[in-house]
């Protein structure tokens, strides 16, 4: 199993730590993992992304141009990475703030209202956890419990009381995506 992902969005959306949590989750699950951020002055622009690879084999390059899964959280990221998803791959996007929907038909496209959900949860900080949940609902590459364990690693000790809240957010994300899928299925 090798899962090659890009997570892209705004600096403030917790894009980089999302990737780290998934990686730590992978470690907990005994996988090889790699995380590679975009770096450089283009970050001035405010966009950020990271490439995450989970695999049961040694990972060659942590930098990729094509992905199994792209999680895009703002319009510029969708514009940039929609085309980078491998045929048959997965594109997940956050609905809020997008001005267009993806055009590709040879990939699976899923959307999520994670931002609104985080507002409903009265904590926009858990936005990225909801997105993780959404991902796991579609592609259960990691056990939820391993993701939580990963979270424990990434979160500084003093924030550990927030873990239950984050877990809840992940589960909310899973539900949200499943509901959507249900709706989709119902429609289809």
């Amino acid at each position: 199993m090798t899962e090659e992902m890009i997570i892209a969005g705004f600096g403030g959306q917790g894009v980089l730590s999302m990737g780290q949590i998934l990686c730590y989750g992978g470690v907990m699950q005994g996988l090889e993992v790699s995380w590679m951020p975009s770096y450089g002055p283009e970050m001035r622009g405010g966009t950020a992304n990271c490439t995450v690879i989970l695999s049961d084999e040694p990972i060659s390059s942590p930098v990729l141009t094509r992905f199994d899964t792209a999680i895009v959280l703002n319009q510029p990221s969708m514009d940039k990475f929609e085309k980078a998803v491998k045929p048959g791959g997965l594109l997940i996007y956050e609905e809020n703030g997008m001005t267009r929907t993806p055009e590709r038909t040879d990939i699976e496209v899923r959307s999520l209202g994670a931002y609104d959900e985080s507002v409903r949860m009265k904590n926009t900080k858990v936005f990225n956890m909801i997105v993780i949940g959404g991902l796991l609902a579609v592609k259960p590459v990691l056990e939820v419990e391993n993701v939580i364990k990963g979270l424990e690693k990434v979160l500084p000790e003093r924030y550990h009381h927030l873990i239950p809240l984050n877990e809840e957010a992940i589960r909310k994300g899973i539900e949200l995506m499943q509901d959507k899928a249900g709706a989709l299925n119902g429609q289809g």
Partner: protein
Amino acid sequence: MAAKGDIIIDIERCKGCQVCLDACPKDVLEMSRKVNSKGYQYTVKVNSDCTGCANCAIVCPDAVISVYRVK
């Protein structure tokens, strides 16, 4: 008092830094609720008190604002 001045805001280039708000002596400017395509909130005119002093335009780091004044 009738407006003596007016401005044009190139909202697609605005980065929502709000420096212009501070500079306007007449509180003409506010931030939009919406974001532009880059995801920034942008400056909007909220009244017609503009005197064309160009204060907003001169401090805007992104040169977003053009200013007109009846001379």
